[in-house]
């Protein structure tokens, strides 16, 4: 299914994709929140950068685990409907990529390929902002 790949050879670790994701999704500019993108640092402390986000797995285990239907498969992506999330974190337990993140009110934040947001549907904001060309929608 569609998802965003990060080329660690190109990524410069500038974190622009992280904030662009927040700006796309967070309606209230005064609110603290989390980005659906994740900056991974190498466990051995080595230099180098890579950011990740949802793989949009086919047969998504998170959607199956979700008791409220907040996560569901929609044509070629795993969609998220935050209003339905009750913060049970069942998805977090089954996701192999540690993707689901939770904002300050405990509600899921996950990549929706920028299909939601206060300004509407956009080309994925992370891809759009990335200065190094590391991010691609595949």
């Amino acid at each position, binding site marked *: 299914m569609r998802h965003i790949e990060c080329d660690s050879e190109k990524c410069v670790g*500038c974190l*622009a994709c992280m904030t662009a994701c927040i700006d796309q999704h*967070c*309606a209230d*500019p*005064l609110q603290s929140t989390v980005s659906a993108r994740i*900056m991974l640092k190498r466990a051995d402390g080595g*230099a180098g950068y890579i950011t990740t986000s949802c793989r949009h797995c086919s047969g998504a285990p998170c959607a199956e685990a979700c008791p409220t239907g907040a996560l569901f498969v929609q044509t070629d992506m795993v969609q998220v409907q935050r209003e339905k999330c009750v913060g049970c974190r069942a998805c977090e337990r089954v996701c192999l990529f540690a993707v689901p993140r939770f904002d300050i009110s405990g509600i899921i934040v996950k990549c929706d390929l920028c299909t939601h947001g206060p300004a509407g549907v956009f080309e994925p904001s992370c891809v759009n902002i990335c*200065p190094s060309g590391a991010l691609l929608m595949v």
Partner: protein
Amino acid sequence: MSNSCGGLERKTAICGLCGKSCLMNAYMKNGRLIKVEGNRSLPHASGHLCSKGAAYRQYLYHPDRLLYPMRRVGVRGEGKFERISWDEALNEISQRLLKSRCEHGAEQTVFFAGHPKWFRPQLAELADKFGTPNYGSESSTCAYSVRMACRSCFGTDVSMIRPDFVHCRTLVIWGVNRAYSDSVSGTVSFLRAVESGKNIIVIDPRITPEAQRATLHLRPFPGTDGALAMAIANVMISEELYDREFVEQYTIGFEEYKQHVQSFSPERAEKICGVPAPDIERAARMMCIERPTSMQLSASPVVHNVNGFHNCRAVLLLNALTGCYGVKGGVMSPIASKATLKGTFAGPAADRRQAERDLSHSLYPAWAALLPSEAQLSRLAEFIGGGGDYPVRNLVGFGLNHHMWPRPDLLEKAFDQLKLLVNVDLFMTDTCRYCDILLPASVSLEREQIEILGGDTVYYQPRVVDTSGEAKSDIEIIFSLARCLGFGIGSPEMSSHDDYLRMMLEPTGLSLDELRAAPGGLLKSRQKSMEKSTEEIRSVKTPSGKIEFISTTLTQCGVSPLPEWRDYRKELPMEEYPFILATGTRLPQLFHSRTYRMPWLAELEKIDKVEIHPKDASVLGIAQGEPVRLSTPFGSVELWADLRGECLPGVVNVYHGSESKDINYLLDAGYLDPVSGFPGFKSYCCKIERLGDAQ
């Protein structure tokens, strides 16, 4: 430019959050900004923003924004204020300043410019017309030592000009992490240079994104750049790689410099800097053989050392040896420029009248000779505390932030001595809490802006959002304050932001009205192309008219005219505090003190951290994420340890500017470069202990 689709309006804008000019799309709904992204429609737009620019919405609508002029009602530092009107505020400030001038003289008032920088020429004029030579800026600790060094060698500020990414064959990036600190177009130009296969030499203790893409990465210990540069010069000269013809024709003092660098063999430099001798040789060869060679030198890291000025001179003089000065692909590349704006920070700065009466004049004679446009104010706390030739009664700041100096506590104490402390700012900062009167400034999207795009197109950006509260553009505040003080700024005198824009446009031959009416706010400048020839660039404005290995001005000022080498590690208590402490190492989400208050950025990771190499950490038994105590001779702070392979072993890195855990409290206020007055931010000493082990 604006266009609407589906209730959304898209406007183009200039970000300016960090003082750079990245172009953005601002999506608006009912007059409110609801999303930003990089712009792709304007000429030469990079199409991207950085992490800070992407959080612009939180910056604009932040609850800490100052919205009204205010007067302090509590004690200094407490943060209690009452709202007053603009008239009341400006009258009170001007009455008090005029009375003080009448009773004690104008020089007891200091005007200070922090960040941003665009209005500085007009603030300098305000100070000058008020009659005080004591106008200074945050450049007392950033960039101006580089500028001094440039002027002492080349008579002009070489470092302000972008390297010629396109035409160079070799690109030297000396201490710059542009992906985290430059405009996005700077990052993109660099990445293009990498793609096009240039030789890239990066000199940086850390493994930065640039360093990862380098052909050759030299990792000197902080503060040893001078020894490294002189060793590179040594190789260039001993292997006869340098441009002999250029040196003969355009420079003076080469024979002395040749003698001077003889003792800096690559092997000796390896011992001082930690850079392998063969790499030093390779760098020298690449810079001279694979020409043209361009260089980018950062505004701060090299000069944030007690020998920083001399180190910087040594680095700059490499450009005289390669002979790539004033050629395409070199430094000061003759690139045609068809549009310039008047009265901007990038333009020439006016000299002050009575500069010799400023507070720093006798302390820093080389600064005084090379930078007549402002005073060196890195010892501001000392001056206010009564340590200058005369007292300081009033301090009027635009973006003044006392956390930028080593030992901010000294300023917190000194502020009590002031009769009047005024700050114009965007946010209720820690410094604002000490002020008598606060004036609210507008952010970039709240004012009309003009920029040159791609060398010849003038871009006018109308106001994108309504101004928050009663905030005003800094320039309007300067004009109104001048009026209240009994004079005007500019000739003809300017009284509004419009007047200011008209003045800026003068060289372009465009009128503000036609620019405003132009589609997208875009018009080509009518200025004639001003391409300087190589010969013109090479007839430099030093006292000798030549590029000076031996500086005439420095000789006159009693400063060593050749780059000296001095090892700070021999002067610091490194036995007890064995790590080199480099502060201010860039993190992409922070811009000095400005973005700490923005959770979208500040919460991307916990930023109260010290970065340390995993090897150093393992010797100390410190694991990733563990709390540690960092101590210097001036105190200690608890931080968490971020084990980063980017760090040079033996060097730890801490970001600056935090109000809650400011590393500057732990620095030595007297640890300054005697020539430039710059603090040794990048090379102090500290020890690190696991919190459990610390006493």
